């Protein structure tokens, strides 16, 4: 008997698909934490493309002496990238270059297994926990953060 005939006997809605479903639900929830606008009115918009897949994210920004804040989001991307953008927006942080680099490094170190995300909100910890299991999607997850970094470095 060919291996596939055994394989197809598996329950189509196995634990794997249950886990996938829960993850997708979470990604969509995190995406919705963002302010998604089709035509952002802010003058300062930064865009960044993922060279691997062509996805593009646009951040409308407000710059003050205190730093740069994301005002709204726009773009066409996968669920991971959209979730990351929603979470980044939800921080309502006024970013400066050094604070963003610190934030990025904390995440990178976490993904490398070097530290925990002790000071991060639970939603973010959960998101990056999932990302730890999907190294192939790290570029997607970092795209909004890298777009923000690009605006700070320009």
């Amino acid at each position, binding site marked *: 008997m*060919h*291996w*596939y*005939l055994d*394989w*197809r006997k598996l329950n*189509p*809605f196995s634990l*794997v*698909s249950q*886990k*996938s*479903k829960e993850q*997708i*639900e979470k990604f*969509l929830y995190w995406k919705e934490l963002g302010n998604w606008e089709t035509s952002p009115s802010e003058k300062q918009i930064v865009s960044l493309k993922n060279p*691997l*897949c*062509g*996805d*593009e994210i646009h951040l409308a920004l407000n710059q003050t002496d205190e730093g740069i804040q994301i005002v709204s989001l726009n773009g*066409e*991307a*996968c*669920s*991971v990238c959209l979730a990351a953008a929603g979470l980044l927006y939800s921080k309502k942080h006024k970013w400066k270059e050094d604070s963003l680099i610190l934030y990025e490094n904390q995440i990178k170190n976490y993904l490398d297994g070097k530290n925990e995300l002790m000071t991060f909100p639970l939603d973010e910890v959960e998101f990056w926990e999932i990302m730890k299991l*999907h190294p*192939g*999607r790290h570029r*997607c997850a970092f795209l909004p953060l890298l777009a923000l970094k690009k605006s700070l470095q320009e």
Partner: protein
Amino acid sequence: MPFDVYQLRRDFPILDIKNPNGKPLVYLDNAASSQKPNSVILATNKYYSEENANIHRGVYHLSQHATEQFEKTRIKTSNFFHAQCAKAIIFTRGTTDAINLVAQSWGRTNVGEGDEIVLSVQEHHSNLVPWQMLALEKKARLKFIPILPDSTYDLRNLNEIITRKTKIIAISQMSNVTGTIHDLSPIIERARQVGAKILVDGAQSASHLKIDLVGMDVDFFAFSAHKMLGPTGVGVLFGKEEILEEMPPWLGGGDMIESVELETSTYANLPAKLEAGTPNIAGVIGFSAALDYLTKVGMQNIHEHELEITSYALEKLNSLGGVTIYGTEDLAKRGGVVSFTLDGVHPHDVGSMLDEEGVAIRVGHHCCQPLMKQWSIPGTCRASFYLYTTKEEIDALVFGLEKVKSIFSRVAKK
């Protein structure tokens, strides 16, 4: 030899592995790279464990044996592709390297300001970026053959696109995105009328079709070993001998010289002139085993098997609903590649969820960003087949896609 896909799969040890979820590997990313049969793995291992020595310069037995193996592969490659002669076979690191060799050597010598380079809008970046670099340096102009909605070349304005100013036409024979197999004869004929050279990107076609280089009458043909059961890091540039003879070396170093003084050097004859430095000897010897394997199975058998699998996949995907398939519906013009999108689901999400089911497909722009822009999409899902792909694996793909659809529809309803 009779074609038995289940028997043949036993030669590929990787096809027995399972993913971390315990699901068997369903490998449908053959347009990116093929899996390797035992004979290729053994040949590479044997070289390193019993035959390892540098080639061409050693006077000892081991080196001479390695040289003989390496050069026999050149002859074998020439015969397999019905090339003009073995000297016309240049080993490179891959298709990208081969195309860059032509752009940097032939191109820099023969393309000047105001000259035209003709490509198509669906070229892989490896057959686009090298020409962009050359055009920028030489102030040459890039022109593009458009594609029709069915992804075949639109040749209606060929005489306006390929003109007396055209120096070279660099074009793929089979699309890595849609699997469309292009009839290049009108383009080659037009190239001959205006005196332009023609380079065919055979990265996809070489592994799936029987290629007759003399019959095709192309000036250059580039392909990679790793897409046709061979190791990574080995490619081939075929060039007409008289053209290769005129080309200056691109890379300088060992093995490509005749004699070296402090200020000047003279260069070796073909093919050494264009193969500077120690090549991927183990890879080339592994490629030799890959050619033997393909010869044993038969390229015609492989093509027929892929047609059957592609036909089955198109039928199954079309019946799934919510699937957009890109490329021609004419099976006679199609190789074992199917690109598709699933309504409302990003290709990356499809790819990740299929991965959990053990199904390996490629998602994204497939190094064809201009084509994606033309279609106004960021990317597609691409399932690509080879001689060991079974209908059951297509069923597994469709089964996985049903689950993706089910999960997304349940999430969307909330």
